[in-house]
């Protein structure tokens, strides 16, 4: 496949950026989107140009590092991570726009790399349980109702990629925060800190400058892990009863 790419290039956090056009050829439809960018970068390096900076780590859809907005959609046209997006979802001759996550709370570091540490600080404010560590407890020591376990698992799938923030017209981190709060608040182990957790995490989310939720639903549509929009309703309930 031959493709035209228009990629956001920005030298550093405080320099202006712009969309820059590149052509790549010989792309196989079995390549992932990141492998396609690797191909471009090899050419750029051979030409003596600066390669396109993008985040990536596991390349198997579990670390959440590889965020970028492809043709206006977080992680591109399929509901998956960019590393798991295959080029077969594009046509030969396509023009593809690639931009970084856009949110006030996610400043651009370089090109497609943004600083997502605001999400880490939300986790730091309550996304854990306070418990003595040591050897793993006996698995059946605390009984967990099946329904609670399923709900916790569903919400624990969040990989912190930030696609929800990137997709939301308000740059809101509600789906991310909901995933973490619901995961821990429905479990007996999370119960003692239930109220303070949700209050602190919502407070941290607001302090980081994320927008509020207008129940637009773009986040849940973009989420590669299928965190449900109703998770936000649960977060709201946890907050209001705290």
């Amino acid at each position: 496949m031959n493709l035209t790419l228009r990629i956001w290039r920005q030298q550093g956090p405080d320099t202006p950026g712009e969309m820059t056009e590149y052509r790549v050829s010989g792309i196989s439809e079995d390549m992932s989107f990141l492998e396609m960018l690797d191909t471009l970068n090899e050419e750029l390096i051979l030409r003596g140009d600066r390669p396109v900076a993008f985040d990536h780590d596991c390349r198997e859809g579990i670390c959440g590092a590889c965020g970028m907005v492809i043709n206006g959609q977080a992680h591109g046209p399929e509901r998956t991570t960019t590393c798991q997006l295959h080029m077969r979802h594009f046509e030969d001759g396509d023009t593809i726009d690639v931009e970084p996550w856009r949110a006030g709370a996610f400043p651009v570091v370089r090109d497609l790399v943004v600083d997502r540490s605001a999400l880490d600080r939300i986790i730091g404010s309550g996304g854990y349980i306070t418990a003595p560590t040591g050897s793993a407890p006996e698995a059946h020591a605390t009984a967990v109702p099946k329904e609670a376990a399923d709900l916790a698992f569903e919400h624990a799938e969040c990989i912190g990629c930030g696609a929800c923030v990137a997709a939301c017209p308000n740059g809101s981190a509600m789906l991310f925060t909901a995933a973490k709060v619901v995961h821990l608040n429905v479990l007996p182990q999370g119960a003692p800190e239930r109220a303070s957790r949700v209050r602190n995490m919502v407070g941290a989310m607001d302090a980081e400058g994320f927008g509020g939720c207008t129940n637009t639903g773009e986040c849940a549509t973009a989420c590669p892990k299928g965190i449900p929009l109703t998770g936000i309703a649960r977060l709201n309930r946890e907050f209001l009863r705290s």
Partner: protein
Amino acid sequence: MLMASATRTNRANRTPAAPGRPPSRAAALWRSSVGKKAVMAVSGLLMLAYLVAHMLGNLKVFFGPDDLNGYAHWLRTIGQPVLHHGWFLWLARPVLLAAVVTHGVAAYQLSRRDLKARPQQYVHRRRQSTYATRTMRWGGVILGLFVVWHILDLTTLTVNPAAEEGHPYQNIVASFSTWYGGGIYCVAMLALGLHVRHGFWSAAQTLGVNNPRRDRALKAAANGLALLLTAGFLSVPVAVMAGLVR
């Protein structure tokens, strides 16, 4: 790259904690984005309940002047003899005014916050969400302006062509017989339908009563309610303009 960036803290755009005493519960609620949105949902639902009653009352127009004017008079006798004549309306008005004002102020403050949180738009734009969802802000502004017009038209009668105090039937017919009177009303009611279509379901989400099992029922209820309100309210100006109500 990730690890390097993850340790960078960006404190510049974080708001510092307020000094002094911890805020009261109400202040904490109002200050947080989730709490403020809940205030919006409650004030919105309050207005919605009022509007359902208002719409049903308006349908009395179809039973003639005596029926409607008698109904308007009865409204002023609610609560008698405990309350004095007309007091019920004067008790309801501050509540509604408070709902409109808090709803509007919260909408303004939250919208400011939302716009600031996405300072740079995407170059490649995509149409997002439903029409009702996208028009909440401007639709809300239209509704706010309409409320002012509506009060000047049919409550204070300042801009009403007939302006007969105590005769709402005649005032309604006079207002809706002008092209602007009927037009403004119709546009506002369409905006109301859209606002309620997203708003009712959204309020359920905001107040935490939505869950996967209720989601579809709540969306259907929002659509039904929006349709019922809009159709009910619209039937009056349409009937006047068609000459059915004179």
